[in-house]
């Protein structure tokens, strides 16, 4: 008996169903994909009835008062009830730089503590700007830390 050789015949796979599923997967991933900005945290340690950890032994305790108008916009930044910076966070940072010598101590527990006292209506975005101004400054990709210890004063009553 003579066998017919089939070695030259091309074996073809049926790809249609696989391509269907692959396209479905692709559509799923494209639809669920979202470009989101990176998020970071400002850490605050606030036990009830206490400060942000050990007592501030430095001679630099800073009280930061943030005043707002009725629309929640920042109108004045006052430090220790004496110095006013208007609504300029750059001036506030310059003041903190001057006070801390430009860097935070190696152990964050040893550094000065800033207490933030704000008007109830003040927009939270301004609070974050104030925290950014006192906790550090960005030099290119590097962040120089200034004050690590932050706490909030008790909330004021709504205006």
């Amino acid at each position, binding site marked *: 008996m003579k066998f017919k050789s089939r070695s030259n015949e091309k074996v073809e796979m049926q790809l249609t169903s696989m391509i269907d599923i692959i396209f479905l997967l*692709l559509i799923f991933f494209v639809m669920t994909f979202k470009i989101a900005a990176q998020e970071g*945290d400002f*850490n605050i340690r606030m036990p009830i009835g206490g400060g942000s950890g050990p007592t501030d032994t430095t001679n630099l305790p800073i009280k930061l008062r943030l005043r707002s108008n009725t629309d929640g916009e920042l109108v004045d930044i006052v430090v220790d009830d004496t110095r006013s910076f208007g609504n300029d966070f750059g001036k506030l940072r310059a003041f903190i730089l001057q006070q801390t010598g430009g860097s935070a101590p190696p152990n964050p527990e040893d550094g000065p503590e800033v207490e933030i006292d704000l008007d109830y209506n*003040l927009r939270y975005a301004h609070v974050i700007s104030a925290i950014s101004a006192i906790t550090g400054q960005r030099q290119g990709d590097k962040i120089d830390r200034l004050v690590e210890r932050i706490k909030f004063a*008790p909330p004021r009553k709504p205006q």
Partner: protein
Amino acid sequence: MALQRKFDAKAAEGDMTSMIDMVFQLIIFFMVLINFSQDDQNQTIKLPSSELAKPAETPLENPIVLNLAFNGNVYLGAETSTIAGLRPLLELEANVLNTQKKSAKDANVIIRADGNTAGGMVQELIKKCQESGYEKFALRAKEEIGY
């Protein structure tokens, strides 16, 4: 002379190989970039931005994410509450920590508040958490991109 034209169906089939390669590459790209860690983020909240907000190198331990909306609603997982009515939810979270031999003091409360929220509301939220024994807080902000 009449020419007979022969249609060869096999020769008309396109080569799918390169297309399948591309589609696989796209799928791999989207699969790698899909971020399941954003599940606890409420997308209606517009976080304030800060140039110092950088993702932490190590994730916070025992995180509890509180999303505070402009209208004062607090979202904790699938639950919605007001600041005043948050205590039972916080105590439930503390009980979960107790089962792991930890306490509310060990938890990190991550506050994702809308940038237009009154700052006083964030203070009230912190105070409410303090009343349930929480001590460590993280105020979350979006990274400010300078370009």
